[in-house]
């Protein structure tokens, strides 16, 4: 069994912490993992993505072949669409709905959301939820929660546990806030 995931967003949005948690869960569960990141110039407000491959069999390439991505997890709606060329026919997009506009030619929002809705997708304004939970920094954990039931190679419970492990050194309050955000994401995903 395998799951090929593209994590994406805009440089600085925190996609790598999502990758770290999935990585922790995979290592704990003994699932093979390869995760290719982009560092350097593009982290300065440009588009960023990370290829994350999970499998019970050995993984060869660090990058996912075109048309084989199972899940796109995106911190930003237009960025989610950037990678649909890599998506498999049954693939799902899990995305934040709030645009990050730092370019003058950002597309029409209604048309963008319309195009996104035609895909197999789960969408949510994760920043609004995180603000509602009084924990704006944990928006990415809402997104991970939304994606959790789709990762399948790892259970929701395994991922939840990894959230506590990764945030443990930041204290109990931070762990609680992130678990709450994660749980809200899981809930939204099931609707």
């Amino acid at each position, binding site marked *: 069994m395998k799951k090929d995931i593209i994590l994406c967003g805009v440089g600085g949005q925190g996609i790598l912490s999502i990758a770290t948690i999935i990585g922790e869960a995979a290592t704990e569960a003994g699932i093979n*993992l390869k995760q*290719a990141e982009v*560092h*350097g110039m593009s982290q300065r407000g440009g588009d960023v993505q990370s290829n994350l491959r999970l499998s019970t069999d050995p993984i060869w390439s660090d990058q996912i*072949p075109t*048309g*084989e991505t199972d899940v796109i997890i995106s911190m930003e709606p*237009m960025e989610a669409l950037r990678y649909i060329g890599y998506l498999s026919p049954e693939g799902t997009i899990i995305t934040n709905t709030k645009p990050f506009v730092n370019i003058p030619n950002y597309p029409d929002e209604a048309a963008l959301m319309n195009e996104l809705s035609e895909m197999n997708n789960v969408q949510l304004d994760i920043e609004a939820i995180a603000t509602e939970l009084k924990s704006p920094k944990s928006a990415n954990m809402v997104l991970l929660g939304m994606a959790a039931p789709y990762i399948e190679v790892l259970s929701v419970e395994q991922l939840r546990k990894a959230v506590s492990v990764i945030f443990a050194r930041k204290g109990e309050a931070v762990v609680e806030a992130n678990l709450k955000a994660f749980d809200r994401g899981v809930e939204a995903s099931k609707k």
Partner: protein
Amino acid sequence: MEKRLLLGDEAIALGAIHAGLSGVYAYPGTPSTEITEFIQTNKEAIEKGIRSRWCTNEKTAMEAALGMSYCGKRALVCMKHVGMNVCADAFVNSAITGVNGGLVVLAADDPSMHSSQNEQDSRFYGKFAMIPIFEPSNQQEAYDMMRTAFELSESLKEPVMLRVVTRLAHSRAAVTVGKAIDQNKLTPSTDNAHWVLLPGNARRNYLDLISKQEDMLKASYESNTNDMITINNSDNGKWMGIVACGIGYNYVREALNGIKNNETNYMILKITQYPLPTEAIQKMAAACKSILVVEDGQPVVEEEVKKLVNTSYKLEGRLTGKLPRTGELNPDNVSLALGKENKPVFDPAQNMAGRPPQLCQGCGHRDVYAAIGEVVKEYENARVFGDIGCYTLGALPPFKALASCVDMGASITMAKGAADAGLWPAIAVIGDSTFTHSGMTGLLDAVNDKSNVTIIISDNLTTGMTGGQDSAGLNKYEAICLGLGVEPEHVRVVVPLPKNMPEITQILREEINYKGVSVIIPRRECIQVAARHARERAKQNNK
């Protein structure tokens, strides 16, 4: 055995620590930076007192590492591929002196130029210096190879190169790690004839290096990661040969797994250590109808294999167009070369726009470019020569300020050359870290020539582009400029903030109009690093 999730760079770093490393020497450069950063913060490395501070440039790094090796200790030098150009003099000559303690030169290449200005292949440098090259195919090999590389360096008494590419440097996987061995004792060399490269000594040493080539080739044959793998799909006798170097091997295996009802049989020679085991390739050519060379970077191996087979033999790779001539390998282009096309299922999105990188909001470089933009409008022929760093983004909209960006330090020297040719105003923009890396000598040339240039050292107190590493000249910039002979009244310091725009533009005009060398230093800390420092202070206060 402990398993750890590590970036390729981190696997290299931990491998070195566990191989008895005594010092790492490096200048930051994507995709190599994380190796040194890992050693700087790793508890075990700190306890062992491994030397790890950033160097001023790759040449000082290479020479200091050679000095440590001279004393019998194991040293590692890390850089991005273009850093090899900077340290080439020391590097090539280190193969002539040979080494005492193990010396590993780590070059991280960047095919596709994700964060670089060219895609030169460091294996050429390894071949040029006539030393062994290691090229791991995955994170585990990267970790394990570090020890092998140090051992080979000490047994041959020569430096060895370890070459990686971006996709391995910046990809994470689980690595089984072992225990550290002790560092070497201090045993400075007494063999002056080997280290003093006077022509008489150098001629002897060069012959010595040539005589070691056979041992290097033998090591490639004995390597347990240079492997011949056969995949037998049918009895039809149809065999295809593949020479797969480094991570190219992974793409080959990925592609072959994806081909359904495949009736071709494959002989795959996985290359992770050079010199190239040529005899194995000749055997492959005899057994197979064709050979495909899969290598990331430039066609180094393909050119060598070409010499081993006759002209009518079907040899394919980047030179023949079977694989793209430029850019990195990926599962799709390797798959296509092996006969299977990976097609997208969905059409490209309609509502899409490019999102290029940009200077952070609030960054001091922005204010510098705003001021330059305003002032240069007033001069018909003004040209701004740029340099390597975050501020290269000043070439993109909305600033579109730069006329050039070539290599570390070239802003100052190109502005100088342009001024010599008669261009005015000739303005250079260079960062603080780039200035100490390779700008200072150019400034001395300009001073000696009384060149009519205006040099802007945009000082953000850090090496910003690579993530905020120490800047070698911190708090020394005025002193350096004065020491090199810039007149005190033409070394001007400003604070790049929107509210200071009238002052900055006025100073710019004054210094452009001065017929000689001026240095303007806009100084304000990188906002990313300032935020990190604030977090660190808050953490300290909470303790």
